[in-house]
């Protein structure tokens, strides 16, 4: 049986606050960075990317919440790509050549964006359509805000102009991917500072570095099913043996033993 969600009626404001601000998919979970780093080098590109991304996310989440609840996860993941690719093919055929050329391969690559898969899998398949739409809108707005800020900063610093106004900065290096990562890093720091100061109870380092000390394992544990099965079998046998040997206590026995312990403690205290 699938787990039913407790969040039956999600408010748009809650979705925007929690999903869009506190758990921002780009700044806290580092999802879907590829188009932001490479294609968001101007405000126009950022807005174009955000519009297409919003369309993909809304459609995918709605379809996932209606039709895909009873499928296995690994098949569902491929369906998100197929749905997104279909929509993107339509968009690519309608969009003008100039905008398409400016975004390059990063517009089609939105179909394998990690945010779409994660939001559909973590939220949409466990809830109803309305909640999914709210979640998609919140995440799309989060994407839009981050993309817009990154695009704005990089446009000002790389071309030295903004909406026809000239600025004293002009450095073509800011259009390169490392600049996108630096801007994202500073935005993530500002985001963390704001959450720490204004909502300290909500601060969760989603991308905690807990497992960072693990060293790369050169043996593939996923495919080693024989060893895994043998281990499980051994564990089961040991458990059965333990259950057989373990003395069975009744509730009365436990209560009497507890009383004995209490009496002993009292004696010790008195002495």
């Amino acid at each position, binding site marked *: 049986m699938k787990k039913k969600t407790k969040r039956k009626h999600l408010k748009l404001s809650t979705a925007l606050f929690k999903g869009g601000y506190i758990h921002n998919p780009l700044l806290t979970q580092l999802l879907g*960075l590829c188009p932001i780093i490479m294609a968001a080098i101007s405000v126009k590109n950022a807005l174009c990317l955000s519009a297409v991304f919003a369309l993909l996310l809304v459609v995918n989440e709605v379809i996932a919440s209606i039709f895909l609840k009873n499928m296995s996860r690994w098949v569902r993941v491929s369906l998100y790509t197929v749905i997104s690719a279909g929509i993107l093919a339509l968009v690519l055929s309608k969009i003008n050549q100039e905008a398409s050329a400016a975004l390059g391969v990063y517009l089609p690559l939105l179909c394998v964006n990690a945010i779409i898969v994660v939001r559909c899998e973590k939220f949409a398949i466990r809830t109803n359509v309305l909640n999914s739409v709210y979640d998609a809108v919140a995440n799309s707005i989060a994407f839009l805000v981050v993309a817009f800020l990154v695009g704005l900063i990089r446009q000002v610093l790389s071309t030295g102009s903004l909406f026809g106004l000239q600025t004293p900065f002009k450095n073509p290096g800011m259009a390169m991917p*490392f600049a996108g990562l630096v801007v994202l890093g500073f935005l993530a720091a500002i985001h963390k500072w704001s959450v720490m100061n204004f909502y300290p109870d909500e601060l969760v380092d989603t*991308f905690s570095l807990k497992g960072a000390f693990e060293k790369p394992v050169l043996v593939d544990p996923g495919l080693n099913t024989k060893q895994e099965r043998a281990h499980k079998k051994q564990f089961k046998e040991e458990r059965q043996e333990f259950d057989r040997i373990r003395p069975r206590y009744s509730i009365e026995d436990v209560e009497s033993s507890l009383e004995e312990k209490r009496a002993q403690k009292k004696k010790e205290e008195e002495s």
Partner: protein
Amino acid sequence: MTQFISMLIAALYAMLLQNLVFSAAYGITESVKIAKRPKYLVMCAFSVGVFSAATAVICRLLDNVKFVAGLSTAVHFLIYAGVLVMLYLIGGGFCVAVLKADKKFMNSLGMCALNSLVLAVPLLNASANYTIIESVGTGIGAALAFLLAVLLINAGIRHIAGNESIPKVFRGTPALLIYVSLLSLAFSCFTGESLFL
């Protein structure tokens, strides 16, 4: 021999000179995610290599068909995505049915097969007009670039996680992003683009 060398050059180009992860940000989310917990690192790199090389070869073969060659860019992209999904379904079905792979393994496989790095390889091959051998080289290069990126990020993460001299606000995600940006800057030196005027 000439073909092998051309494949090797394409692989080295995709791995070092134009590192697909750091210089073009393909699959950077997946690299960071796996660098954090590199339990399935080799399997992931292998999956990326197999899927990207296989997708690249099939897409190049389809590009050579006259009917497909005349289609628009949007349809071309749809075909590439379709080929990738088909390969993923075949590979996933094989792992589930024959190898009895567990859920965690299948989740990792999905992440490794359906990402921007794997889908970018056939698109790049088409734009650079590579031969089939060179396409295989790019696919292998993509896997090596991914492996290199994960190892480099993992090495940095271990230093960042235990470093208390980093300001509190920058600890965790912001520090990691800036560390990756420095790696990206290092690899951009190979591309030959000018950073300053």
